[in-house]
């Protein structure tokens, strides 16, 4: 099972693990994309996953996605929790029959010796109520630790995924801490520890964790956030209500700009949640509002050429 083209040496730093994942998935034919330039809660929100999982066009992409979960902020003190962290995301459509083997190869590539560790696929069905998406799969355990999510997408934005995309999500900090044998995330070498200027994760992120934790929990102005939420929601609707055809007669459906507003609304909701101003019942209503946006964006995307509509159909 060991992957012959993967280096078996132990990586030395957080960034080396990312680089190895990049080159591994590149070698398996994935387009290596860059992070999406907006605040998101998880790599799934990147349009390269959410939207590209729709329609029948084949797709294979891998990327790092900085992700924000305001409620998980711990001022940089908790060894395992961060309000800003990185996910590594792979999406391949249609899911290849050897996706599990490909995935195991990626673990070998980052220095996990599959002959010594206990890798397990433990049931974990994925559902994103905000994206109107769900899939079946597992959380992958390495010696009892969850190192990845492995999901076969069944539905996104209320649309059946046909063909089905296979999604792999690695929680990079946790995985790297395990591979590098680090107990506190802030102690993890970010670059090579023997580099002239060796930086630890804490050197890069402790300051920001403190600042954002305070802002997320205590300072963010809830009225402003709420207003922005409503603005994003309105703008999303406005974009999608526009004519398919512009003034020059070009047919351009603006699924992505609309989806940006959906992403914004989702993140603003997370910030409001961290501020503790959203009640249990209100939560459901907010999630429903974001889902409505996500569905509308998915409806728009499947009418575009990238979304699988035939060119003449898209032009019609």
């Amino acid at each position, binding site marked *: 099972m060991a992957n012959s083209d993967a280096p078996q040496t132990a990586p030395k730093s957080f960034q080396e693990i990312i680089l190895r994942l990049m080159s591994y998935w590149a070698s398996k034919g994935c387009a290596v994309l860059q992070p999406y330039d907006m605040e998101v809660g998880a790599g799934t929100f990147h349009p390269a996953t959410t939207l590209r999982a729709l329609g029948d066009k084949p797709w294979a992409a891998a990327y790092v996605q900085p992700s924000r979960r305001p409620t998980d902020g711990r001022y940089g003190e908790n060894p*395992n929790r961060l309000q800003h962290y990185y996910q590594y995301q792979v999406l391949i459509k249609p899911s290849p029959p050897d996706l599990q083997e490909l995935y195991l190869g990626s673990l070998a590539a980052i220095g996990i010796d599959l002959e010594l560790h*206990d*890798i*397990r696929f433990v049931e974990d069905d994925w559902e994103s109520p905000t994206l109107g998406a769900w899939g*079946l799969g597992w959380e992958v355990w390495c*010696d009892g630790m969850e190192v990845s999510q492995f999901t*076969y997408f069944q539905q996104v934005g209320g649309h059946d995924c046909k*063909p089905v995309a296979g999604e792999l999500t690695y929680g990079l900090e946790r995985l790297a801490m395990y591979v590098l044998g680090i107990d506190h995330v802030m102690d993890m070498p970010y670059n090579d520890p023997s580099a002239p200027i060796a930086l630890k994760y804490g050197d890069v992120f402790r300051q920001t964790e403190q600042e954002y934790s305070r802002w997320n929990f205590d300072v963010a102005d809830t009225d402003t956030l709420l207003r922005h939420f409503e603005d994003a929601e309105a703008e999303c609707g406005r974009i999608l209500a526009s004519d398919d055809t512009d003034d020059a007669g070009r047919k351009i459906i603006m699924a992505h700009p609309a989806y940006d507003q959906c992403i914004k609304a989702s993140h603003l909701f997370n910030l409001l949640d961290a501020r503790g101003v959203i009640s249990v019942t209100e939560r459901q209503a907010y999630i429903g509002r974001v889902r409505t946006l996500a569905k509308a964006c998915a409806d728009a995307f499947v009418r575009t050429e990238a979304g699988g509509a035939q060119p003449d159909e898209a032009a019609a």
Partner: protein
Amino acid sequence: MPDLLIELFSEEIPARMQARARADLQKLITDGVVDAGLTYAHAGTFSTPRRLVLAIEGLTANSPTLREERKGPRTDAPEKALDGFLRATGLSKDQLEIRDDKKGQVYFATIERPGRPATEIVAEVLEHAIRNFPWPKSMRWGAGSLRWVRPLHSILAILSDEAGATIVPLDVDGITAGDSTRGHRFMAPDAFTVGGFESYARQLKLAKVMLDPAERADTIWHDAQQMAFAKGWEVVEDKGLLSEVAGLVEWPVTLMGQIDDEFLDLPPEVLQTSMKEHQKFFSVKNPKTGRIEGFVTVANRETADHGATILAGNQKVLSARLSDAKFFWENDQRMIKTHGLEGMAAGLDAVTFHNKLGSQGARIRRIESLAREIAPLVGASPDLAAEAARVAKADLRSEMVYEFPELQGVMGRYYAKSASLDDRVADAVRDHYAPLGPSDDVPSEPVSVAVALADKIDTLTGFWAIDEKPTGSKDPFALRRAALGVIRLVLENGLRIKLNTRPSPFSKAAELIGTRDDSFADTNEILSFFHDRLKVFLKDQGIRHDVIDAVLAMPGSDDLTLVVKRAEALSETLKTEDGANLIQGFKRANNILTQAEEKDGVEYSFGADVKFAETPEEKALFAALDAAESQIAPAMEAEDFAAAMAAMASLRSPIDAFFEAVQINTDSEVIRRNRLNLLSRIRQICLSVADLTKIEG
């Protein structure tokens, strides 16, 4: 006769679905082959995370040839009738037979349905089973449209006998059945062919796959106990966890580790919850200290270092989780030290309970007032009950419960103790959620009972007030469970609370909620909701529905303890011969009386006098009624309904004798009226415990 072996090899099947899937596979295949005319001697099923297996012994090789005889038209019938018959049977005219019938000569056809080979039948049945498998959740993958629990990779399907194995000819969406499988994902991933079940199981074992889930569970449990025993420890038994863990591995390797000393002071519930829910570890207890000090984890493989790396990894994950837990525990303790438990609870003002019912904080203030009201009814100190209510949900603001929601209440009790609150208050914090399920223990400490009742009554009243009542199968706020909780709290503690008599707990709760229209609190709406729950509850205890109806028709039916006392007494009496016959006597008396009352337009309710009694039976009945009444009155006073019912049952023979000997209707109006008034005494006595007119039969 050949044996059949089927293996459906897929990506990892969720552990919780495997047992059901084994049964479903067996049923689908055996039912299918039997319907097609095959028989078999024995069937067995197995599963691992990656395979679902059915082995059938002694399957018939072919289904039998069936002959069917069909009667056709008469030989002198028009040509068209014969043509139709030939078309229907698929035969030609010379294949028909002519027989003599009552009305002349008739064509007969003998149609032969040839038997089919088992391979063909199995192929059809298996394909149907795969395409229609009742997984609780199934999925598509790749570009295909087939559904399975996770991607299906291969199908092994062979019929084997002494002569060798035959592959069942089957192709399901591009997956062609064959005679090969694979071993353990990591330890023996190569494919190999099998010739039958025996070689399959043997080769699998060589390929590090233990096929039988029961064998895996036994191995795990045996090894775990051995390891614990060697250290003088004991594994905490958990059958659910054992079967789950057995469903997660093909080759179980049991490993035991020690919990770091720094975590041993955490509450055992925290250790156990964290280990079981997150890691699927068994807890291991040190009987000398009574603490959980170790864990058992089950790996899916052997390694060159005998599991050292795996154990170290698991240990590390556990330590990370427990240091999280410890961090929460210490933060929570700090919070309590500086702000008290009530300080922690203060945060609940910012948490909405329901947008029409205010914040959790507001709800707690209502529960506090309600608990204070209820306390004297249940023998609790109002101040303690109020104090317990104030802090009962404080732990919802704790970091520990945020992380482990299943520990709500349990943590609250620890935190109440940290805050040096009264033990009764601390216990009430833990127990006020109870009972949750029908088998949950019901608290008996009065402070706990007061808060538990207040909590549930506030919930019920609140959702009633905003018209969020349960409908049909929908009960999003678990109001049925809350009502059953109130019922069990009342009954099992023998509480005497009038739910519907103002000032009732419900009218008080409605007042606290500030609902404008609180009429539901004393109309029969909430009460009949309770009565419905009570009926279900009592039916489960073996009390007949008509008995329940008979007692619910009595006054004071909002006093559930009284209702049940009556029901039990009546139920017991009906089981005796006298009791059952008394009902007949009563009904006869009641029918005659009711008819007479309707006819005469009066109510016969007073004035039966023994001096107008004519026959000895009539006089005896007077005496018996006097005697019974003298027993029933004090029994009713003491709510000794069993004694009251026994006294009633003793009336059975005098009543029977009376009806045997006496005609109610006589020429003398005085005597007739006296007899009707006598019947009225029977009715009055018999209706004192329950409305016997509602008893069936």
